[in-house]
């Protein structure tokens, strides 16, 4: 874009950082020299606090200059305490290709103060037990949003207390009445929950609560960014500096405003250096449940899920959701993992022979493509089932199996060459290769060119264990 950048990453070079370092090459940080340390700083692989000399009194000025220079466009706000404390925001860039996004969007699921104690406990267990293994990552949910639906301070307090006893996940306390909110806070005075929310009416009381209990605070102004900015400015002047911005989330006809507001705020922060926009953004897909009339529950969950995914792409740093079904949360949590990976991660893995477990001369031999996602999926299926096997990774220019076969990136020639180059012929005494089911079209050609007997395996690697049990004979 043509936008000017304040402390944009592109402009920040290792030299800029190096100039402010002690330049003694003392290696106390673990790096070979100060320039190597500076390079890691610029790549956000190391923190300036890991340079002991820089923390000395005489270097205070340089330290502060560096801090300012490295400050993210979106402030990092911490919710909760202890192991499960969650960092929101801290974003360095607007677009994913500019730099890896920091701090994956936190997902909070609600409980209410009108649920029975058992309902609250069951729901929290459900949230804590949400877990999905995905190519070596475990996808989890992050927070509990406690809503005051009763409007009763004591009920809210009791529920917050119960939540705190049940889980150490960080909380968002949601009540627009400051008295109710404070009752909740009294149950967890040192837990640093995120407070929802200061608006144009209650801001003064909310600011006092945020200060008194040292909590981050959401400022909320639905579809009114001028008021949102005014609130943020007022809070800063009040001394509340850990803010989260809620510009409102709207379904259906409200989608254009929703997307506009999130996009404008993030651009103002990242490209315009606008301090008042430089806070984490809260999205509330849960609004799909407001005023739903006769709409079927599954349709609401469907809508809530896709709204969450759209907000996740368009800069939300924290999301509040009500639907807690696996089918509706899975796409959003997988998308989050995808969007928050390093954009420089290669599409392809190195071709060659991979060894799993402790295979012997009778162990099965598979091949797969060198598209990273295909490889990791197959590898994780072999690994998690503790199989002893050889896997030949064939160069397919980063194509998956089916598109590789269709686009002639995965050919019998390449498979035959890969078998030869892998050295597998000296490792097993059989000559049988199990090929992906999706490559069955080239099975004849592979046999012809490689001289190996082809066994067509399952179309999806999740079927490998069963396949081996039923079909594998060395």
């Amino acid at each position, binding site marked *: *874009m043509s936008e000017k950048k304040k402390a944009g990453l592109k402009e920040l070079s290792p030299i800029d950082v190096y100039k402010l370092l002690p330049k003694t090459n003392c290696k106390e940080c673990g790096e070979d020299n100060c320039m190597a340390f500076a390079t890691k700083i610029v790549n956000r692989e190391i923190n300036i606090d890991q340079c002991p000399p820089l923390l000395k009194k005489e270097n205070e000025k340089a330290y502060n200059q560096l801090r300012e220079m490295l400050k993210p466009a979106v402030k990092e706000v911490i919710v909760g305490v202890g192991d499960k404390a969650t960092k929101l925001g801290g974003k360095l860039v607007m677009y994913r290709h500019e730099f890896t996004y920091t701090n994956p969007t936190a997902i909070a699921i609600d409980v209410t103060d009108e649920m*029975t104690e*058992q309902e609250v406990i069951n729901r929290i267990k459900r949230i804590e037990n949400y877990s999905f293994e995905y190519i070596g990552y475990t996808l989890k949910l992050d927070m509990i949003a406690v809503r005051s*639906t009763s*409007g009763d301070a*004591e*009920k809210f307090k009791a529920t917050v207390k119960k939540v705190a006893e049940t889980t150490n996940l960080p909380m968002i306390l949601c009540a*627009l009445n400051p008295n109710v909110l404070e009752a909740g806070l*009294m149950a967890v005075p040192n837990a640093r929950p995120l407070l929802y929310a200061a608006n144009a009416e209650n801001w003064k009381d909310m600011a006092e609560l945020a*200060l008194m209990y040292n909590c981050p605070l959401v400022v909320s102004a639905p579809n*009114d960014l001028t008021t*949102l*900015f005014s609130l943020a*400015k*007022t809070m800063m*002047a*009040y*001394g509340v500096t850990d803010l989260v911005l809620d510009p409102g989330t*709207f379904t259906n*006809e*409200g*989608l*254009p405003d929703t*997307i506009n507001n999130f*996009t*404008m705020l993030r651009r103002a922060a990242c490209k*315009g250096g606008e301090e008042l926009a430089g806070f984490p953004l809260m999205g*509330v897909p*849960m609004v799909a*449940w*407001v*005023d739903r009339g*006769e*709409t*079927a529950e*599954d349709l609401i969950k*469907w809508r809530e899920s*896709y709204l969450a*995914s*759209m907000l996740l*792409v*368009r800069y939300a740093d924290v999301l509040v959701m009500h639907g807690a*079904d*696996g*089918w509706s949360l*899975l*796409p*959003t949590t*997988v*998308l989050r*993992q995808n969007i928050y990976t390093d954009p420089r991660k290669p599409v392809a893995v190195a071709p060659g022979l991979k060894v799993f477990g402790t295979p012997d001369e009778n162990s099965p031999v598979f091949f797969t493509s060198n598209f*990273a*996602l295909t490889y990791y999926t197959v590898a994780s299926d072999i690994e998690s089932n503790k199989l002893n096997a050889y896997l030949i990774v064939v160069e397919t220019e*980063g194509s*998956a199996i*089916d*598109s590789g076969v269709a686009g*002639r990136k995965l050919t019998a020639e390449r498979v035959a060459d890969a078998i030869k180059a892998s050295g597998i012929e000296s490792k097993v005494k059989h000559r049988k290769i199990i090929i992906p089911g*999706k490559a069955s079209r080239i099975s004849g050609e592979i046999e012809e060119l490689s001289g190996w007997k082809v066994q067509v395996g399952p*179309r999806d690697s999740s079927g490998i264990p069963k396949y081996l049990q039923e079909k594998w004979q060395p």
Partner: protein
Amino acid sequence: MIQLPQDGDKKKEDEGLKLSSDLLEALAKFQQIELQDFEMDVKELEIIFEPGMAGQIMPKIKLPGIAGGKPTAMLQTAFVPPVETYPNKITEVKLGATRSEGGTRGRSLIIGGETSPAFYNFERPTTHKPVITLDVFDMEVPLSKAVKMHVKDVVGDPAAWAKLAVDKFDADMVTIHLISIDPLLKDATPKDAVKTVEKVLQAVDVPLVIGGCGDPVKDADVFEAICEAFPGERFLISSITRDMDVERCAKYVKKNGHIALSFTPMDLNLARELNRRLYDFMGREDIVMDLTTAALGYGLDYAFTNMERARIGGLMGDVELAHPMSSGTTNAWAAREAWLKMSAEWEPRELRGPLWEVTTALTLLLTGVDLFMMMHPAAVKTLKDVTNYLTSGKKADASKFAEWVSVKA
């Protein structure tokens, strides 16, 4: 280029949850669907109220004074929308042709023409709404259960399938995938393919996408026969790839008044290079590009970033990338999570599958994709709804938003 979806476990098709027989209708008509849900048993629990409101017993702590004092009234400031201008615009491409335009379609559709990133409506309104084309296959192919239930009566009859896509599923366009021409499958002749296209052309009056089998030599022959048999229809020829005889293909596409879908595998340099080769034979307004769509969970991150970069690059003056973008969103079904029967907490897959396609589509919608090649009717409906909303120019009703805090959902 799309990959064929696959069947989960065929044998277990009749098992599982008792869903309404037509999920799409259920979704569309907001009927209550019977599903096992997670609602817990509501037990009555008596809560003993302590006397006195919390507000009266709360500790009041004196805070240290802040320089200048705490504000007593809200400080006012303004928000200025960060509006930008861009040196370039995305080329407009017209798909299909009416009789007066030299074809036989009921209407033609224009995609592209954007002058801002996708849905930056605070800058400029969207020029042309994204278009959805539905997949139709010319022979039986493996389909996931969630998809098959909607098309089982028309599999093997591309004309009927196309009609269903347009009449019932509201497709803007239809893609006829000529799978049977694959030399490794049925090796149908170019003449057979022309006949299939003719049937589809008769059955529906929307613009068509012509899909090949992925074999660079066979596709080139078949595309040539089709381009020449139906001149002036402005078919989107899906696709022209680097390993084809690009010069030959570009010439017959151009000569017969069709459009090239320039397909490259997730690499913007290759996309630029292929587009440059096409420019020697055809105008920019005759090219749509496909930068490869990977499924959610299986490389969607690469597709997302590639497309976002391409669109921003195009607007910033990289003319070789300033083409409308097409996405083979059907590839979402290549993800096992879209079709696999999983343990109970992730079911039903009848909802998870189409939502997988929706999530893939919406992620790419926000990068600027102009043409979606899709599969599941419920996913199509949602994408249509969302694009209609996003381009409606309507304002949000902010008055009800705060109710989410207290709603008894």
